[in-house]
């Protein structure tokens, strides 16, 4: 006869108990009995997990984007720009837009003085201009620079070629256009050899850059490059005096000596200006490596910080679960008494309530990951970052949620398990 078969001849000892499936079934029923309360109980965990998932996704997306942005800008890059207070992330790439303050002669001097150490020099002056081709109009950033720019800033055209030194020397009206400009202004037509008007002035397209991806600010896709000399004369309409540029990009020959080159250039430019005290310098040189590092560091700190905040919210969610479970144990004292009277062991009662809190937190975890993905997408769209899904952080958040449910469910379940049957039955 099977052990489960009821009947006479039952001994004093034996095994009883619920299967796991049975326990989960009871828990699910209890949860379904009060859906609103269950949902509110799980909400803390949902929000906590969603926050962890969304924040890490957006954080990683931001890091990746800035890193690829910086790396796409060229290797061994030093940027000479106007003096600046602090060196924030992205330093050296976006001090565009401000007034051009650097004398162009600095660029010539650097090229002549450091022929070995420096392999490319590209001063840039820039401004926003109306582009016109046929009936199409577009406002874009026009950058005047030297041919070295192509190499220094990783801007080799996909079609055609970059303008040459001769173009610069002869102040030719030629232009290399970004991918987005080609798309939007020439819709379907081949821009090569076509003439577009920049600020009313006709220029011939000699090169089209490849799609650099949407890099948000300072997107190369929406820039047009022209010889610096042409720019200064035709577009900037420079009055008499020394021509000024916004920045000078310098490509070092050797990655390992970039730091040293940075110091020597600083020294050199200070001497050229007859300045001694660094606080009076009207220029600054940033190192791409520094920028990368500081970006990584900043985003790491941010991610950890936000992750910590999210973890705390998960903890708060856990306390919410504990609170409701304690209430639920009290409310169901009678039920616990009945179940015990009918043969539930302390273990079975413990399992029942623990299962309830774990099911709540697992449900919360699943919803949280889903909501996190959604939030990451929305936030990503809002700030122009494509979020990176990390299975690891989602998994960790999810496991943490289960742990929270188990941990905070344990005490109420334990309280339920050790209730005395007769006392529990008396409870009104």
């Amino acid at each position, binding site marked *: 006869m099977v052990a489960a078969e009821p009947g006479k*001849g039952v001994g*004093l000892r034996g095994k009883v108990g619920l299967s796991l499936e049975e326990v989960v079934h009871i828990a699910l029923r209890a949860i379904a009995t009060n859906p609103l309360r269950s949902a509110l109980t799980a909400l803390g965990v949902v929000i906590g997990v969603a926050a962890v998932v969304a924040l890490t996704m957006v954080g990683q997306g931001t890091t990746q984007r800035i890193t690829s942005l910086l790396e796409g800008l060229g290797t061994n890059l030093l940027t000479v720009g106007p003096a600046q207070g602090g060196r924030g992330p992205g330093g050296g790439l976006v001090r565009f837009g401000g007034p051009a303050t650097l004398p162009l002669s600095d660029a010539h001097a650097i090229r002549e003085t450091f022929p070995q150490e420096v392999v490319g020099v590209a001063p840039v002056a820039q401004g926003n201009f109306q582009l016109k081709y046929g009936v199409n109009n577009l406002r874009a950033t026009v950058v005047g620079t030297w041919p070295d720019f192509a190499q220094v800033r990783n801007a080799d055209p996909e079609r055609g070629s970059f303008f040459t030194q001769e173009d610069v020397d002869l102040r030719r009206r030629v232009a290399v256009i970004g991918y987005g400009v080609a798309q939007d202004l020439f819709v379907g037509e081949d821009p090569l050899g076509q003439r577009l008007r920049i600020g009313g002035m006709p220029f011939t397209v000699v090169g089209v850059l490849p799609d650099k991806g949407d890099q948000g600010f300072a997107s190369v896709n929406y820039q047009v490059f022209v010889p610096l000399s042409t720019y200064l004369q035709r577009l900037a309409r420079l009055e008499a005096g020394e021509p000024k540029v916004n920045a000078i990009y310098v490509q070092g020959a050797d990655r390992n000596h970039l730091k040293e080159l940075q110091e020597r250039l600083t020294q050199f430019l200070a001497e050229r200006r007859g300045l001694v005290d660094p606080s009076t310098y009207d220029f600054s040189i940033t190192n791409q490596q520094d920028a990368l590092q500081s970006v990584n560091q900043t985003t790491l700190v941010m991610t950890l910080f936000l992750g910590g905040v999210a973890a705390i919210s998960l903890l708060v969610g856990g306390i919410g679960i504990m609170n409701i479970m304690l209430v639920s144990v009290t409310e169901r004292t009678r039920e616990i008494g*009945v179940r015990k*009277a009918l*043969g539930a062991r302390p273990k079975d009662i413990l399992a029942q309530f623990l299962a309830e809190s774990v099911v709540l937190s697992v449900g919360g975890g699943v919803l949280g990951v889903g909501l996190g993905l959604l939030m990451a997408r929305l936030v990503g769209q809002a700030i122009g970052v494509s979020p990176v899904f990390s299975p690891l952080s989602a998994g960790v958040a999810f496991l943490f949620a289960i742990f929270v449910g188990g941990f905070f469910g344990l005490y109420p379940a334990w309280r339920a398990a050790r209730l005395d049957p007769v006392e529990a039955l008396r409870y009104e």
Partner: protein
Amino acid sequence: MLLELKGVKKVYQSGGVSFPALRGVDLRVEEGEMLSIMGPSGSGKSTLLHLLGLLDRPTEGEYLLLGKPTSALSEEERAYLRNRFVGFVFQAFFLLPRLSAVENVEVPMAYAGIPRQERHRRALALLERVGLLDKAKSLPNQLSGGQRQRVAIARALALNPPLLLADEPTGALDSKAGEEIMALFQALNRDGTTVIIVTHEPLVAEKTRRIVRVRDGEIVADERRGQGGGR
């Protein structure tokens, strides 16, 4: 000897006041007996039955089950016995309010590890036996007092326990239904189940061969008669 109480006392403590609900009870019940416990309200009948059903522990004295002291049993072992050895019909029924009649009957079988299908089949058979098959899917609050009582009885019988303890099992029933239930108990008793019934009704008590009378927490009479049902 199925069960034996030796000098059992039960003192309730509530709010600093202690109340002796049982003041030294000696009782022996043989396997296969059928007996009634009678007594005025508050005399300690339910308290006695709870002790016999291992729902409570004596404050003093010993309760022997199959000759073995129950004070040595662990919580797990007591749970096992409550599940498989004792069928308990509560005075207040104590059905689980969110479960249907048939699900209520299934509960003890779930703790016995009987698979769902099997348990459902048996629960329906039990409900049929107490005449409630048509109410199988009803929730307790959709049932009358008498119907609830019958569900509680079906539940107590779920695992066909060797000892059936029923606290006023006919209290909410009309005389016809009450007689049917008593007939059911007598049939079970003929098959070997030991039945102990707490009752106020002399007509019910008459159906058992032995009547134990309780007053103020003490057994004042233990009558055995030749006539009536049981052995």
